[in-house]
Structure formats: C-alpha cells, structure tokens
C-alpha cells in the first residue's frame, strides 16, 4: 500500500512479480479495486499494466482479459469490480495484463484466498487510504512512499512513519487495564480520550480500525496507549524518489525512511545501483 498516489506501488508490484518469476516461485496477482477508467481519474496517467511471465495467476475483470496472448481462464468468481465480474486466469505466454480487483475488503480476501489456494505467494496491488482492505488478513505489508505525495522529503518521511506506526500498532496486554473500542476508533473519540487523560490501553480489533492517519495519528498516538487485538505485519518500505514535480535525493530519502520506520527500505528504481538499505 502507499502513502499517496504515485508512491510507486505498481513499480514495486512489478518488481516483486519479476523477482518471484526469476526465483521460479509461482505467484498470484490481484489488486484492490479499479475505477473503471483507462486512465487515472486524478492525474490522467494511464493505469498500469504488468508484463507477466508464465506461471503467474491473476485476478482481473472479464472485460480486461487480454485477447492476446491468451490467458487460461481458471474461474469466474461471484465478485465484481467496476469493470464487471472478476475472473481468475493463468498466464501461459509472456504479455501485458491489466489487473482489476473488487472494491470491498471481504471480496478481496476471497479473491486472494482463491489465488493462493495452492499455497502460492499472492501479491496485492494496494491503494492509498484503503487500509480496511488489510482487515482479517495475515499478510505481509510493503509500504510505498514517493516524492509525488509530499512537498518535502521531511513530509514524506513523516507520512510514511505515521502509516507504519499505525500498521504496527502493538498487541494489547490483557493483564493491564484497557478500554476496548468496538468498530472504528475515530479522531473525535480519540481526542475525547486525550482530553480525559486516559491512561488505560485503548484497544481496537486491528490497526485498520483506527480511522485517522498522518500527523493526526502521530499526535494522538504520542498521548494515548493505542493497542490492537490482532496485529498486522508491515515488513518493508519502498521509496520512489522521483515524481513529475520533484525529486528527492535517493540515498538520503531511503535512509531517512529506514531510520524513522525501523523497517528495511528498498529503492526499486535504483535497484542494486543504489543497493538495498536495511535499517
């Protein structure tokens, strides 16, 4: 998932797909939603297509299944995207495939489950602000941050640090006093806890139930002991130091993200040219 649009998610997904193919590891590929337009509604950029090699299994809308090279259709699901019914298909020859997924978290889980039924890796091309799609999963999460989403390197690092902190909400300690929040913890409810000087653990079911992000999250998290019943697994960050408007210094960006998040950070553009940065 990304901190903003054009954070480099699709580049990361393509890199993961290529790495899995090179490793001879079968994998599945799906995405969260798709709005039905050929180009992005906000910046008019064309929606990404992935060049996939045999062995990949994909979920996409029936209307997006390429005419050539032909895919092997393995299932027509009951799930729907903005472009119609979602189908599962196997790549039989190298070629470009456009991916589209269902808009709801539940449907995405079912699709991912079907793709990974034989135990293969499943890569999900996530989205901005779609943290709810991570609900009820035990997925490893890669967080993408890019120069496109923030005016300065510092802002971009703050954003990714807040998102990672939210995703890494620690498990609650049942021995210590706690307040369990059913459903979502809203910013208003959290502010109320802050005003009341709440010292107990504030527990939500999982980090996706925290309904505020960015600096608001950072500020509230500094004042409350936010916890969750089910933890998520952010395992790495990626940086995209380039955008149409600005460019961050790649090494400095990657190092800053690694330092603030404590996660391994990869620059897919620089690849081995910049080296892999571990925290």
């Amino acid at each position, binding site marked *: 998932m990304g901190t903003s649009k054009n954070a480099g998610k699709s*580049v990361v997904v*393509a*890199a993961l797909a*290529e790495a899995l193919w090179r490793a001879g590891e079968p994998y599945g590929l799906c995405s969260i939603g798709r709005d039905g337009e050929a180009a992005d509604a906000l910046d008019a950029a064309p929606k990404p297509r992935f*060049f996939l090699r045999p062995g990949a299994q994909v979920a996409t809308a*029936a209307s997006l*299944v390429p*005419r*050539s*090279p*032909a*895919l*092997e*259709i*393995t*299932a*027509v699901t009951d799930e729907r995207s903005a472009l119609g019914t979602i*189908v599962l298909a*196997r790549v*039989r*020859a*190298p*070629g470009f495939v456009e991916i589209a997924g269902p808009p709801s978290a539940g449907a995405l889980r079912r699709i991912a489950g079907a793709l990974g039924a034989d135990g293969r890796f499943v890569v999900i091309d996530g989205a901005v602000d779609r943290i709810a799609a991570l609900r009820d999963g035990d997925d490893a999460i890669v967080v993408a941050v890019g120069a496109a989403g923030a005016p300065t390197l510092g802002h971009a690092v703050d954003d990714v640090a807040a998102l990672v902190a939210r995703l890494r909400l620690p498990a609650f300690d049942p021995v210590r006093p706690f307040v369990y929040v059913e459903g979502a913890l809203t910013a208003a409810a959290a502010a109320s806890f802050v005003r009341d000087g709440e010292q107990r653990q504030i527990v939500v079911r999982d980090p996706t139930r925290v309904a505020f992000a960015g600096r608001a999250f950072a500020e509230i998290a500094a004042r409350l002991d936010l916890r969750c019943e089910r933890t998520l697994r952010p395992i790495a960050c990626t940086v995209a*130091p*380039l955008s149409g408007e600005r*460019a961050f*210094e*790649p*090494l400095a960006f990657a190092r800053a993200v690694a330092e603030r998040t404590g996660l391994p950070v990869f*620059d*897919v*553009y*620089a*690849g*081995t*040219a*910049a080296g892999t940065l571990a925290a």
Partner: protein
Amino acid sequence: MPREPHGNLSFRFGNLSFRFGSLSFERFGRVTFPWDSAAGEAIGADWLLAAIAPGGAFGRAARFRERAFRRGDEELARREIARVAHIAGTLEAGRLASVRAAIAGAPDPGALLVRAAAGGILSDVDFFELSRFLDAAEEVRQLVAGVPNEDLTGWPPPTCVVPEMGLTASAGDEELRAALAFGRTTERTFYLSDGFDPHLASARGELASAQAAYDAARSRLGERIARYAGVDRVRDGEFVLMREAVRQPLPPEVRVLREAPTYLLCEVALDDTALAALGARDAAAARVADAEEAVRGRLSRQVAASAASLARTCDELGELDLLFARAQFAQRYDCRVPTIDVGPRVEFRDARYLPLVEALARHGRPYAPVSLELEGVAVVTGPNMGGKTAALRTLGFLVACVALGLPVPAASATLPLVSAIAWIGIGARPVRDDDGDDDKLLSAFGGEVIALRRFLESDATRALVLVDEFARTTSPREGRALLVALLESLREHGVVGLAATHLTGIARAAGVPHFASGGLHGLAPHHGAPLDLAAALTRIAGAMDYRLTEVEEDAAPAADALALAEALGLSPDLIARAKSALS
C-alpha cells in the same frame, strides 16, 4: 405446467427474448396466478411459491413462461401432478438436490449467445462459461439418466402417460462441447490451446523464439550497463544511476530520461540488434493474436450455429429446475396426488396448511390436520382460535397447489381447478394495485364491500370464494343479511365457497351446509402468575377440538370466548362481570 405462447423465439436470456434474423425483442409479462395479492397472502400462496422457487436463472426464465392451471386444463394438470409425484417417488432426495444444484450452478449463456448470433467474436471467458454450461447440462443428463418414465399404475387413468423427462442431448450441444474440449484441461479451465489449430502452435512457437531472442538481446545490453555501473543488474523499466557511479561518456546502451543533482533517471537504449529482435517479437505476437482470434471467430460461429440448440437446453434446464422444485416439495411434505374434479366439489382428509404447520413447529407445537367434504357453498362456525380461518386457508392452499401442478399435503383430496381464488372479509384488500391509496379513505366494512364488488364484477363463476367473517364490523342484523345474500348469490353462481362467521343462522337462511368446529373442552383458566403466552396457547390448542363436522343447527352458544379470554389471562374480575352480563 402450461406455457404461455411466445411466438417464434429462437432464444432468450433473463426475461428478454431474442428472435434471430428479425432482431426483435419481446419482454415477457409477469406471471399471473388466479389470485390477487391479498388472497395469495391469506391462503399462503406466497409461501408456496417461495417453497417451489426456481434455483437459478433458467428456472426463473421458465417460470416467466408458465401460467397456473385453470378451468379446462384438468387433463394437463393431472399429468403434471402425476409427473411430479412420480419423480418425487422415484428419485431420492439427494439426487433431486444434486440436479437442482447443478442447474443453479450453471452459468447462463444467454448474453453470449446473443453476441455470437449477432456476429460477435466471443472471448475466452465466454468459452469458459459456455464450457461450464455444457458440463452442467451433461451432469444433469447423467443425473436424470435411467430415471424410469413408465406410466403410473392406479393413478392417473391409463390414458395418462407420464411425459418424457430429462434433457434432450442435442447434436448441436454435443458438437460444440466436442469443439470446446480442446480448450478444457483436467482442472476444467479453458485455454485457447494449440489443439484448436496447427497454425496456433506454430505461431506460438515462433513467438517464444522471438521473445527469447529479444530477451537475450536486451539482457546483453542490461548486463553491459550493469558492468558499467558496477551493479548486479538493472531493472527492465526506468532505473537510476547515481552520478557518483557514472563515468563519462555514458555507454550507448543508456538513455537518460531525466537528470537530478545526484542521479540520472535512465532506461535501456536498444541497439540495432535488440530493435530488430523487438520488431520480430512484435510481428510474431501479432501473428499469434491473429491466429488466436481466428480460432475464437471459428468457435463463435459454431456457437451461433448451435444457439437454438443451446437455448433449448436452457429452457429444458429451467423446466427441470421447476419440475424438480415441485418434486422436492412433494417429497419434503409427503404430498399426495389429488383427484381433480370438474364440478364444484371439494373433499380432503387430514390436510395440512403448511405455512401454519411450520410456524407451529418453530414453537414446538403440533398441528391438527383438517378434513372437509363440501359441494358448492357452505358455512363454518366455531369459537375463536377454533380453526375456522385455518380451514379456509387450508382449502385455498390445496386449490393453489393444484393450480401450480403440485401434489397436495393431505392424506387424500378431491379438488377443482378454479378460475379465481377470492378472499373476502378479514384481510381482503379493497383496492387494486394501481388505484393509489384510496383504500385509506375506507372503513374496514367499506373496504370489504369494495373488494366484494370488484370480485362480483369479474367473472365469478367457477371460482373458489373464501369468506372470513364478512361484515363483522357493521351492525349484526344488517351484516347477517348481507352475508346471507352473498352466500345465496355465490351458490347460484356455482362457485365453491366457504364462509367463516360468528353470526348465527346464516347457513339455514342461505340454504347451504353448515360445518362447525368442535370447540373447547376442559380448558383450565389462567390463575395468578404472570401469563406465559406460549404455555397458554399450548393449553388452548390441547383443549380445542379442531375437527369440522357438518351440523344441522347452529351449535348452542358456548361461552368459549370468555373461556379463551380467561385462559389468556384477562382479569378474573372482568371475566366475572362478563359472565354476569351474559346471564
């Protein structure tokens, strides 16, 4: 079930029909039943329709083509009910369920048939769905194969032959199935495999070689750049070179897209060899695309040629779905084949009004079956909660079963096909659906009168008329007069009718038979502790004799209403005052 005529339709999907050639569309009307919504609700027809609801798109389309049996369809109805009973008695429940599950799970090929018939080239997803459809149809054929179709013995009469059951294994379906088999894998997936066309195999072989040649050419360039930059490899798309690692001049394989103070954004610049390989790859890919599309075109034309056969299979699947839904109903509720009488005669023994049976069962309470023998019009009287309305509903339910081609939930039954089932009195709705909300301006009595007037203005002959306490909200004297007049009129129309009432002397005055339920016997009053309604209802049911017997005179007035009120926890003081007033 009889089918509404729908012209020379080639095939349909959903409730749209499509006539190939003239490109005309026809929308099917709503299924009509011989009862209005109020009567349907009162006699449990809605429950009944839900109990035999189609399992999927084919059944729903088939239901649109059906109509209920009506007067004159007696022979058809006998055959259909016999067929349903035969299947219910022959196939085990698991097999029935398997057939219905296979039909419900089959994708509807209607839309793709339309596209193919219109000259469109179908997609691989379409072929996958079509293959699944043909597989499902074949599975259904296998499941119904071997089910005997011999005449029933004893009933129906020897002239009645149980119609053919099962799916027609048409040549069109089989040819298409064989054609698509090249694309089917052992996992039942679909792939436009090389088996469809030798050209496909050769084109794909050329593409694989061309792709490998291009990959190799590009790889060589990438390796040179990696060596230059001192990294393991560079990625396929855009990549970054740090300025500190860059020595001038840049190698010709590197194309700079953008410069930043500390790095360069680059991509691989293809040399002549790589460009030639890329061109060869693209040309090979185009040949593969052409070959694949040619196969799709050929298959699509074959689908178009088989469209009528496939549409027929859809129809047959739908009809099987409905037929087996009825058979499941007959099995589940232990239904029997009724005798269908052309006269205004009704006779049933130990009949069950199934919606009430199920409602009572949910509360752990038993149901008392109803028996009745009736010719023409009759009156039924009895205490509150004594089963008068249940008797009306049971009669309506059984007649609705026959109209829908179903065996009935009774030990035995003789029932008519009717032109309409009318419900007059409590629960009747005075206003047609398209009359807006004028009914809100009417009193309960006014509403009953309007509903009755509308019924009498229609063709009321050969109807089943169920009258539940008509005119109970007006003065007893005039209400009685109206009810007597109504029953006389119904009798003269030759309808089958049953009127439940608390008014006395109705049957004798109207010259019709009189049935009475047994009433309460030994019902203990409720004392002291807070009322346990469920327990009270069980006590009342245990004390109530629901049997209907024909009587000569109105039963002597029993204080059953007071006993019921007492059992339902009304204050003893109030009961005592009522008894005093009564005496």
